[in-house]
């Protein structure tokens, strides 16, 4: 890894703090009834998205789960418009109709925000196919929760990604609970990062609490 400059360190710090403060405010607004539907906060996981995005190129694509507010902030999107989307306003990223779980910004190569567990994985793999098809040298980063790792379509996507050698990076954010069920009770073999090995996809485990 390249040595981080002072501005890199401060960028990491400010992005993580921005996500934390944003989510605290979201929680308050949810409690006050300004945010309808579900509202999944990213508090505690800030190091994951900020760490990964420190390596991103401008035109790389990102697709993630329903715990997406922090991902949008880290991608450099406008917090005003993210907050507008959460509160269902017309100037939000999905015109106020997507809410917490379904925010998109195609012009920033951010493809959501997906409410269905695991659904973003075939989508991200398809976006990676587009990058390969267009030979544009960009990659797609697909975030996956631990719950989705027991989801059939994830492995179908892994198979094609490996078979066609797609420029795809899969990041499993294992926060130890999928929809409230602990990984130990839901997954046979808890080494989720090894599950791509059968397809020849190399996996690596990193501490998601430490951005360095």
């Amino acid at each position, binding site marked *: 890894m390249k040595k981080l400059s002072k501005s890199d*360190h401060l960028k*990491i710090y400010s992005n*993580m703090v921005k996500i934390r403060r944003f989510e605290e405010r979201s929680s308050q607004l949810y409690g006050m009834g300004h945010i309808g539907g579900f509202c999944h906060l990213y508090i505690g996981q800030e190091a994951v998205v900020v760490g990964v995005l420190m390596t991103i190129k401008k035109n790389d694509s990102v697709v993630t789960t329903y715990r997406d507010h922090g991902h949008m902030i880290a991608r450099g999107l406008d917090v005003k418009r993210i907050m507008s989307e*959460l509160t269902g*306003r017309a100037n939000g990223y999905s015109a106020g109709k997507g809410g917490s779980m379904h925010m998109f910004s195609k012009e920033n190569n951010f493809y959501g925000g997906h409410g269905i567990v695991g659904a973003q994985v075939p989508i991200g793999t398809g976006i990676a196919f587009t990058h390969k098809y267009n030979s544009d040298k960009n990659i797609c980063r697909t975030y996956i929760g631990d719950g989705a790792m027991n989801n059939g379509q994830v492995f179908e996507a892994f198979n094609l990604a490996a078979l066609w050698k797609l420029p795809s990076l899969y990041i499993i954010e294992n926060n130890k609970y999928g929809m409230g069920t602990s990984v130990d009770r839901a997954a046979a073999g808890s080494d989720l990062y090894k599950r791509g090995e059968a397809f020849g996809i190399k996996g690596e485990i990193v501490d998601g*609490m430490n951005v*360095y």
Partner: protein
Amino acid sequence: MSDPAKYRTKAELEEYKNSDPIDVVKNEIIKKKIASNKELEKIGKEIIEEVKSAADFALESNFPENKELYTDVYL
């Protein structure tokens, strides 16, 4: 709360609070003398303002018009 997190014990929550990823960064920055506490506090204050104004902006913004009910809907 959208997620009251009843599945996680208080002890586990405390354990993770004690390894807060933001503190990890803060400690690294201070320890290596990359920036001073004062600089970090200044950044923190700016962010609080930015988030506050984003929330105010959102709450003052208009809801979608009724006709939006029928756009981007596929059957």
